[in-house]
């Protein structure tokens, strides 16, 4: 039993409180989802719950009481909690301490004094359960982001802790891997506390807690996921089906019945919305029979890939972890130049001859890999200054870009002091300032809360409407279905689908091949009248309130 009362925390005396009087009781075996936007205090609370703050990280100022199993946790030594509590950090990659999957999965139990055979047996079972057995002897450095995230989660499960705390465990996982983690959550025998920026996975939990600005503003059951007003007030989006249906329903059938009761279908609007728009525009990028092997490897990461990207289109690239999405996009952006077979043409000219620098911009998943300047303005202006642009031109263009991204009032702020949503916008703006015609975004919404996600994607959509060609790599089927027209799906380095997104999500042939799954809203729409609705915007057009 966990009993927390009057918990307050600040990282430094001069900084504001991150947690402001948290009171919380958790019973053994409960499965709790704690949701909140960026900066709500989730990560701090996860560290306090696991004992890391203040037992290992003693820097901040803490008030309140935390009782666990009759002990005051703040008076214990961390060794007293060894093996009882486990926390998956948000930066899961930094949490991996071994050089191979096998060694990582046995590290925790071995350090708890367990024998090698027992530890390995448990590790093998876990790896098999989560589809990691083929990677069991692989080095950590050779894994994709999603595979690393799974390894980090399994390394905690290997110690069978009484309380498992996961801070955003799904960020880098493809939908099938997410399903595996959700299955684990459903079957977990201990106490499970998962921190997320959304309530999309509400169905796996007994209890949903919503945090905002360091406070718990709601603590109730699954029905919390349908409290649209409260969630939006906290900067969290309700699941698409509930947004469409106007509230919570315990099952898909009931949600559909509720929609049928309150809404009517407009067939004319649907035929307009679902019409395939074949734009007669030239291709900006043509890829012909492309194959790629990383230096020093024998495995083909991309195999005989051919497709075209039309000028001004908005393309979503989807596929399982390790399917070759990022590699393909880095080749298109001219970052990886040495592809072994095939040809790539940009506006009709081979990129091997001319290069694409300045024409194709690439926004990385982690904004912190590129931010270095002392102010937001200098960071965004960097690419132009590198090209030797005149001061007046730099000022006007950077000013315009900051306006688009809503960063004008933060012009003189230190980029590192801003929330992740803003850092992602800065990273994006600092690439766009060079005015590339094609913009490739690698998982632009990872780690962003609902409002930041919508804000960023709306800006990108706006840029697309002004003629920019946009390519986004994404694991979010909601994003793939909400933004853009076409989908490129990869599996095992091969294209399994390239075309209209409605065709992709119709039936499960293509989605299965690409190891992704349709959204709940799509499933609900098919259940309603067999007409596929891709996103909530389309739903509100085609289903009108009676």
């Amino acid at each position: 039993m966990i009993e927390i009362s009057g918990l307050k925390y600040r990282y430094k005396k001069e900084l504001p409180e991150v947690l402001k009087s948290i009171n919380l009781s958790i019973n053994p075996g409960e499965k709790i989802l704690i949701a909140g936007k960026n900066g709500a205090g989730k990560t701090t609370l996860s560290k306090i719950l696991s004992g890391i703050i203040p037992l290992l990280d003693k820097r901040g100022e803490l008030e309140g009481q935390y009782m666990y199993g009759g002990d005051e946790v703040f008076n214990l030594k961390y060794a007293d909690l060894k093996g009882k509590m486990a926390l998956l950090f948000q930066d899961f990659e930094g949490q991996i301490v071994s050089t191979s999957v096998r060694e990582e999965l046995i590290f925790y139990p071995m350090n708890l004094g367990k024998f090698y055979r027992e530890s390995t047996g448990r590790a093998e079972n876990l790896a098999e359960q989560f589809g990691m057995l083929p990677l069991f002897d692989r080095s950590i450095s050779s894994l994709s982001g999603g595979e690393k995230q799974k390894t980090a989660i399994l390394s905690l499960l290997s110690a069978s802790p009484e309380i498992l705390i996961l801070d955003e465990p799904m960020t880098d996982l493809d939908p099938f891997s997410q399903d595996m983690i959700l299955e684990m959550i459903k079957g977990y025998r201990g106490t499970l506390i998962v921190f997320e920026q959304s309530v999309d996975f509400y169905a796996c939990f007994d209890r949903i807690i919503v945090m905002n600005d360091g406070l718990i503003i709601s603590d109730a059951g699954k029905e919390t996921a349908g409290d649209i007003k409260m969630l939006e007030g906290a900067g969290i989006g309700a699941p698409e089906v509930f947004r469409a249906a106007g509230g919570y329903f315990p099952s898909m059938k009931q949600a559909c019945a509720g929609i049928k009761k309150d809404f009517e279908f407009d067939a004319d609007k649907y035929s307009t919305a679902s019409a395939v728009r074949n734009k007669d525009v030239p291709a900006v990028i043509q890829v012909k029979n492309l194959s790629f092997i990383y230096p020093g490897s024998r495995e083909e990461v991309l195999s005989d890939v051919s497709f075209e990207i039309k000028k001004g289109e908005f393309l979503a690239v989807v596929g399982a972890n390790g399917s070759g999405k990022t590699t393909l996009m880095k080749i298109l952006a001219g970052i990886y130049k040495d592809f072994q077979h095939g040809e790539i043409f940009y506006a009709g000219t081979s990129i091997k001859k001319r290069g694409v620098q300045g024409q194709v911009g690439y926004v990385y998943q982690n904004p912190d890999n590129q931010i270095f300047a002392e102010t937001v303005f200098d960071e965004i202006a960097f690419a132009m200054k590198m090209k030797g642009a005149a001061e007046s031109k730099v000022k006007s263009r950077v000013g315009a870009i900051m306006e688009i991204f809503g960063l004008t009032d933060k012009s003189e702020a230190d980029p590192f002091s801003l929330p992740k949503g803003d850092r992602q916008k800065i990273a994006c703006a600092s690439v766009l300032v060079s005015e590339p015609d094609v913009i490739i975004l690698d998982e632009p919404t990872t780690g962003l809360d609902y409002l930041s996600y919508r804000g960023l994607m709306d800006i990108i959509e706006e840029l697309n409407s002004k003629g920019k060609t946009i390519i986004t790599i994404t694991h979010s089927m909601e994003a793939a279905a909400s933004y853009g027209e076409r989908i490129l799906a990869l599996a095992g380095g091969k294209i399994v689908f390239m075309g209209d997104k409605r065709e992709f999500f119709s039936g499960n042939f293509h989605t299965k091949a690409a190891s992704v799954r349709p959204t709940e809203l799509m499933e609900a729409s098919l259940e309603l009248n067999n007409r596929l609705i891709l996103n909530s915007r389309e739903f509100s057009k085609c289903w009108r309130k009676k």
Partner: protein
Amino acid sequence: MSLFFYKKQETFIHRLDPRAKIISLILLFAIAAATRLVYLQLILTAGLLALFFASQSLEPLRRMAALFLTIAFMTFTLWIFFYEGSVKIFSAGPIVIYKGAVYFAVISALRFINLLLSGLLYLSTASLEDLSDSMVLFGVPYRVAFTFSLSFRLVSVFASTGSAIVEAQKVRGNDPEKGGLFARIKSYAPLLVPLIINGVKKAEILTLALESKGFAPDNKINLTGKHSMKPYDIMVICLMFALTTAAIAARFA
């Protein structure tokens, strides 16, 4: 591209106990260092190449071949000019070549090659865990052995972070591999800031991660059941000792 050479394979060399592997490596070094006859060094080179073939580790050999041959060539060239014998066979100003210089240069180059090949064979057939486990099994404290393997993990983390940072900056037109010396130095600042900030963050997280996963400096790890010395391992160690003894004997014969 991986920084490491090891690839799990099911060959007789990969299957050796980590202790047998490290002892064999030390003895191979001893043989290479002791041997002063060209034909014996050539036999050792041939033997090592055969072991690369047998352990299906030709890929690391291919990756390093150019570097090894360059080192061998440099060694050969340097010793030709720096070897000091008693009989001059060539002299032009400050350049003097003595009798025996070519032989000494050849043997030095071969010795260097054999030392490098032995090390590469070990790195291709022994994982980092093999190395740290063998240290623990030889009585080195766990914290020392683990820190050793952790440093390699950190190298790969920093290398991948570094390459991501370089890529991200190149996309924005800041290529540290282009331009003159001053331009290159200037282009490194935007790389260093994120690298240092990422590095500090990662070091902080790693410390917390280690302690939160039960690691403590005084932990004792029980490796029972993970490795066992089989008769085959003993045979390999005995064979290596015999070869080393023969090489030392040949040197003093």
